[in-house]
């Protein structure tokens, strides 16, 4: 080992119009370590790694790799230097096959042309290394689930034989098994003297995996320390700059609530196979299970997106699934959905924050056929205040917000419609602890106001901490309905794998 760290940044600053994303950051990362990077939403983590990976150019400061000063003007240059990054926004090409994607920039070639056979074999080998033999290298990435895509993304990075591997929230959509695989992989890489930078909002992941932790706040590098040298509480304090108390708001005492939303024997294509579920007013029902067991489809069905849904749906006495989101959001059902992927399904990124907030509730700020500018402004300001969205001006493009604040915009948009049924599809994915807490508190507050909340999460801790009841889905049906003390990790995991002792209650 040489004396120098593999990667060393000095005095890096980066400004965007109006925001200071990074300010005079010094940072170093050693070979053969897994280095965690923590920080609130908007702390500048993604900006930092984009600079390292050659996507962005810093305004000032220098970067050394292996003791050499480098300046990357595009990602391919960084790749050539052994810096490989898995970005927060996936960088897979949906219309190419898995094999094409894995060998995207530097495919094996014969006579100047891509050797598809070699490419396929290479892809199979890399996929095998992360235990994804089930992924056919010839399928289009478009046809994979989000979690499979994330694994392919990891395979793709691996295929580039990185010397520095950066994972920017690359495990946010993974199933538990895959997460384990990734842990093993990172451990192996550490053996091979590869440096890894690991960004995640899941404290437990970071705790378990990383050797060194760095905390960022407001574009500054606050501190770097060895794992275990700080308590969780300290780490959180470093991240948000203040003390945090209990992570989850207290749950109210369990009580019987008449169902407001109830679903019986819901069937759709081969994704929903007789799901039965109910949610009462004032109740937060968690939806758990392995990724891709039909949770997303269940929500889409309730929101009127799916065609040809069979089974019983009843919302506040109104029978039948709505025929479209437009019908769903209006009286008498008043359903809203915070979708899985905020960038493509939740937001119009180039449009202003105000326009995004209003998108679901034009009728509420209209007088006759016309939108009233006064009411409009008031509504927008109220929404921003209610969720404490950090914005410069409501007229800025929503794309300029950090991930967490973007998610808040999506939630605020729906709260403006005053919904009675709130469907949340993994709303805390990629969101920092502080914001997560705000969202938990908000959920509870909304429930207390008498709304029915269905909350899908891939994070067991959330389900346990937040929900009054938890329904676990397996293969398109609800296989367990946990209440009270039954909501614990063991029960959830057992039911998720459908190895629980209970017979599915659904089919009655």
């Amino acid at each position: 080992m040489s004396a120098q760290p593999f990667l060393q940044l000095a005095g890096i600053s980066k400004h965007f119009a109006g925001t200071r994303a990074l300010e005079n950051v010094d940072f170093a990362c050693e070979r053969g370590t897994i280095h965690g990077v923590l920080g609130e939403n908007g702390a500048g983590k993604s900006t930092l790694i984009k600079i390292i990976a050659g996507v962005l150019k810093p305004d000032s400061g220098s970067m050394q790799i292996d003791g050499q000063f480098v300046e990357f003007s595009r990602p391919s240059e960084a790749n050539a230097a052994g810096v490989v990054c898995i970005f927060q926004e996936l960088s897979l090409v949906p219309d190419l096959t898995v094999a094409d994607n894995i060998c995207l920039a530097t495919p094996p070639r014969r006579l100047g042309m891509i050797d598809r056979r070699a490419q396929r074999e290479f892809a199979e080998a890399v996929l095998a290394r992360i235990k994804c033999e089930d992924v056919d290298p010839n399928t289009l990435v478009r046809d994979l689930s989000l979690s499979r895509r994330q694994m392919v993304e990891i395979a793709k990075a691996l295929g580039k034989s990185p010397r520095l591997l950066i994972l920017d929230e690359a495990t946010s959509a993974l199933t538990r098994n895959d997460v384990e695989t990734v842990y093993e992989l990172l451990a192996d890489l550490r053996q091979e003297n590869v440096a890894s930078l690991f960004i995640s909002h899941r404290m437990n992941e970071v705790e378990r995996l990383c050797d060194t932790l760095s905390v960022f706040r407001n574009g500054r590098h606050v501190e770097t320390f060895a794992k275990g040298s700080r308590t969780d509480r300290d780490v959180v304090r470093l991240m948000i700059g203040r003390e945090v108390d209990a992570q989850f708001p207290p749950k109210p005492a369990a009580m019987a609530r008449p169902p407001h939303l109830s679903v019986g024997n819901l069937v759709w294509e081969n994704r929903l196979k007789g799901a039965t579920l109910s949610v009462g007013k004032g109740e937060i029902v968690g939806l758990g299970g392995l990724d891709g067991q039909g949770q997303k489809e269940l929500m889409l069905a309730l929101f009127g997106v799916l065609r040809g849904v069979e089974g019983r749906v009843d919302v506040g006495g109104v029978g039948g699934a709505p025929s479209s989101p437009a019908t769903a959001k209006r009286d008498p059902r008043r359903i809203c959905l915070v979708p899985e992927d905020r960038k493509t399904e939740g937001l119009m990124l180039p449009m202003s924050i105000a326009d995004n907030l209003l998108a679901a509730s034009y009728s509420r700020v209209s007088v006759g056929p016309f939108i009233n500018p006064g009411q409009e402004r008031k509504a927008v300001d109220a929404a921003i205040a209610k969720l404490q969205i950090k914005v410069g001006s409501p007229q800025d493009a929503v794309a300029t917000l950090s991930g967490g604040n973007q998610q808040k915009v999506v939630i605020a948009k729906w709260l403006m419609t005053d919904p009675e049924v709130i469907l949340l599809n993994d709303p805390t994915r990629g969101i920092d602890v502080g914001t997560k807490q705000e969202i938990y508190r908000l959920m509870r507050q909304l429930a207390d106001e008498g709304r029915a909340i269905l909350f899908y999460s891939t994070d067991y801790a959330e389900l346990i901490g937040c929900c009054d009841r938890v329904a676990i889905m397996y293969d398109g049906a609800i296989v367990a309905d946990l209440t009270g003390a039954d909501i614990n990790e063991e029960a959830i995991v057992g039911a998720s794998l459908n190895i629980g002792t209970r017979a599915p209650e659904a089919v009655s």
Partner: protein
Amino acid sequence: MTSLGTAMRQNRGFYGAVVLLAAFYLLYNLLHPRGFSTAVLIQNANESVAIVFVAMAQTIPVLLGGLDLSVGAVMTLAACIASVLVNGSPLQIVFGMVVTLAAGTAFGLCNGLIVVYGRLQPIIATLATGAIAMGLALFIRPKPGGDIDGDLNWALTNSLWDFVDTYGLFDPDTVWFAPVSWIPVPLLIIVVFGACVWLPFRRTVIGRTIYATGSAEGAAYMSGLPIDRAKIAAFTLAGFFAACGGLYLAIQTASGNADITQAGAYTLNSIAAVVLGGTSLLGGVGGAIGSIIGALILRVMSFYFRILSIDPLLQPLVEGVVLLAAVSLGAFRVLRIKNRLELFR
């Protein structure tokens, strides 16, 4: 088997187009008094070369997710250049052809440079450069005309037999030549360009970058693909194919004609051909072979007016309705979609 199944599923549009073309063309030949003859094949092929090339040209920018509204104009410009240069001694003729193709390619290169370094949307940049190409064509050929070598005209618009015969290469009736002598030269030109330019190109890194960029530009950039070079290459290749179309058009008509309406019609038809051939206007999916099929479908549709008795004043209506119906075939996909979010891809 599964991989064939996968390929079929991934290229549904393309295979649908192949079936449609086969059905249309078979029926046409059955109805034609001299169906399935070399003469008919030659005629059909001749008529199709220009639109086939222009459709191939259009495909590549479309794969990028853009449109090239200048392909028809570049074709016309090339034809006008060819009408001035392609004559004289064999050497001069070859020189003229090279200059023609080079000019079209250079124009495509300019399109690419403007799109990449001017950061303009291709559709609007090429709308403007198309006008410039038309202007240049009009400067070169203020009125139709030109004297393209007559032998060349005859040799390239007939079967291989006539080609060999025109240039006296060898005795065209020799036994070994008989099995291939019936093949129309225009058909051969299409096949050769499809197989020797497009297919290899598709397998290069630049070719794949075009697909990747059309599918997800951000991802392609993040993955370190040479997007700018791919865009420039795409428009350059489009210019090249358009110039091929123009060169053939000039040889076929032994003249050049800076006809604005014809140029516009070729551009629009090229888009129709690309869509009929299963290439997505959103980019990333499809290919030039599909566009060849699409262009041929467009052509075959119009052949029917010559063998069926349709009131001449109803023909434009029939033509429009058939075009609309053909492009609507793809809509059956929509009726099968059960998750409405998939509609917005």
